């Protein structure tokens, strides 16, 4: 389990995160949702240690990540896979080399085994035969899938995914969503998705954390979202009249 205990983060005088408490469970797709500029990405970066918190603690399976030095964190980081919003593939490497990269850096297995593992991961994300392509030759969806393949190459315990559907068409988004769902179940990882795509949330979300103004404003599952009285969450999830009508329709169906 990942536990975030009372973390706060400021940039100058602007406090971005205010005493955030949240936990993420294994085998579940945990969402952090919220409007732009509310602190979603900062929260994710604080959890994985790309930003230092001002106060509070982040625990990875009872290991206090916040208190660790660089070398101790390295061990935890080997258990973390992350898919970035822009995929963050290394431009100078082929798809296969990108997926093999963490193995090259941290494992001592022969290159042939690394290739095998890379092929397995690429097959898992339906990218067979694309091994020798460079990121510039891939579509947005293929880049995301390569990013996922790289993230799972080391068999991570924790999978962080930042805006998995940004820049993708609705059909490709569903393919990526399903892949995230399947991998979470298959590897029993703790998946944390940062998103504002409600379609994705309703499709694969198990636990949903709504962040507003730097605080966790609401927690629950997707069924509870439909019946919540939380005004800010309602404004976020059902921003248009069309969406509000859909909600009413769903309520009446029940």
């Amino acid at each position, binding site marked *: 389990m990942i536990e975030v205990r009372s973390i706060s983060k400021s940039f100058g005088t602007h406090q971005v995160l205010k005493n955030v408490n949240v936990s993420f469970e294994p085998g579940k797709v945990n969402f952090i949702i919220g409007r732009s500029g509310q602190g979603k990405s900062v929260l994710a970066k604080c959890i994985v240690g790309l930003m230092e918190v001002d106060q509070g603690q982040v625990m990875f399976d009872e290991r206090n990540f916040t208190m660790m030095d660089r070398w101790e964190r*390295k061990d935890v*980081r080997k258990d973390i896979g*992350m898919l*970035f*919003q*822009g995929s*963050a593939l290394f431009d100078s490497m082929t798809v296969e080399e990108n997926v093999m990269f963490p193995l090259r*850096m941290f494992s001592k297995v022969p290159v042939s085994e690394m290739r095998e593992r890379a092929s397995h991961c690429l097959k898992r994300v339906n990218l067979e035969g694309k091994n020798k392509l460079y990121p510039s030759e891939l579509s947005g969806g293929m880049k995301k899938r390569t990013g996922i393949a790289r993230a799972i190459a080391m068999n991570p315990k924790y999978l962080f995914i930042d805006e998995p559907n940004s820049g993708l068409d609705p059909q490709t988004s569903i393919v990526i969503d399903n892949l995230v769902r399947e991998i979470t179940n298959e590897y029993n990882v703790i998946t944390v998705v940062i998103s504002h795509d409600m379609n994705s949330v309703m499709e694969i979300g198990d636990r949903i954390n709504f962040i507003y103004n730097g605080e966790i404003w609401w927690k629950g599952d997707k069924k509870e979202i439909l019946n919540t009285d939380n005004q800010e969450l309602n404004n976020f999830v059902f921003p248009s009249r069309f969406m509000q009508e859909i909600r009413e329709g769903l309520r009446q169906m029940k």
Partner: protein
Amino acid sequence: MNRLYSAIGRYAILMSSVFSRPEKGKVYRRLILDELMKIGVQSLGIVALLSLFMGAVVTLQTAANIDSGWIPKWTIGFTARQTMILEFSSTMVCLILSGKVGSNIASEIGTMRITEQIDALDIMGVNSASYLILPKIIAAVFIFPFIVIISMVLGIAAGALVGSASGAISLTDFEYGLQYYFDPFDIIYTLIKCVVFAFIITSVSAYHGYNTRGGALEVGQSSTRAVVSSIILIMIFNYMLTQLLLL
């Protein structure tokens, strides 16, 4: 002034990360070889071209300015040698390379920063500073002396050829001037300088690239800053090393 102190502090912290223990030596060896190609071999063309023309021009200008019969013709060879060895092949070539290599390093690392590739390295537990910057520093410090020696040879050879072809000086006189009062320490001095400049160009450019924030515009700005900072530092260290080593 505070910004300068802050930049020096951040540069020192970055360098301490760069020179900390690398993850896997084998991976670094391959990276160093790649950088030797990019920084060294791919710079040879421009350095060779400039050295040839500079050697030729220095010879012709010296010949054109020697009017007095009291000044022997071999002075042309002597001047060409001293100019190429002491200043052009180390300082000028490094200034040129700060434009080519420095801007390349800053924009490459800067682009990696804004596209989150450096974050991806950090997340994996890779020491991104060391992985990205150390191979460049090692490659440059190793290959720059060879580039400088090639520049010296080409510049002096071009001077001799152009000088004799234009009738300004015979090859025998030029050769006499080349050998006249030659101090081998001049070569050591120039190699020391180019090693220091190689370190400045790669580390300062990498620093600017690594600290890029924003988008494409900021990558361009980092690249410009890298070149300007490198040039200023090269001139300052050129003066300091000359004072220290030659006087």
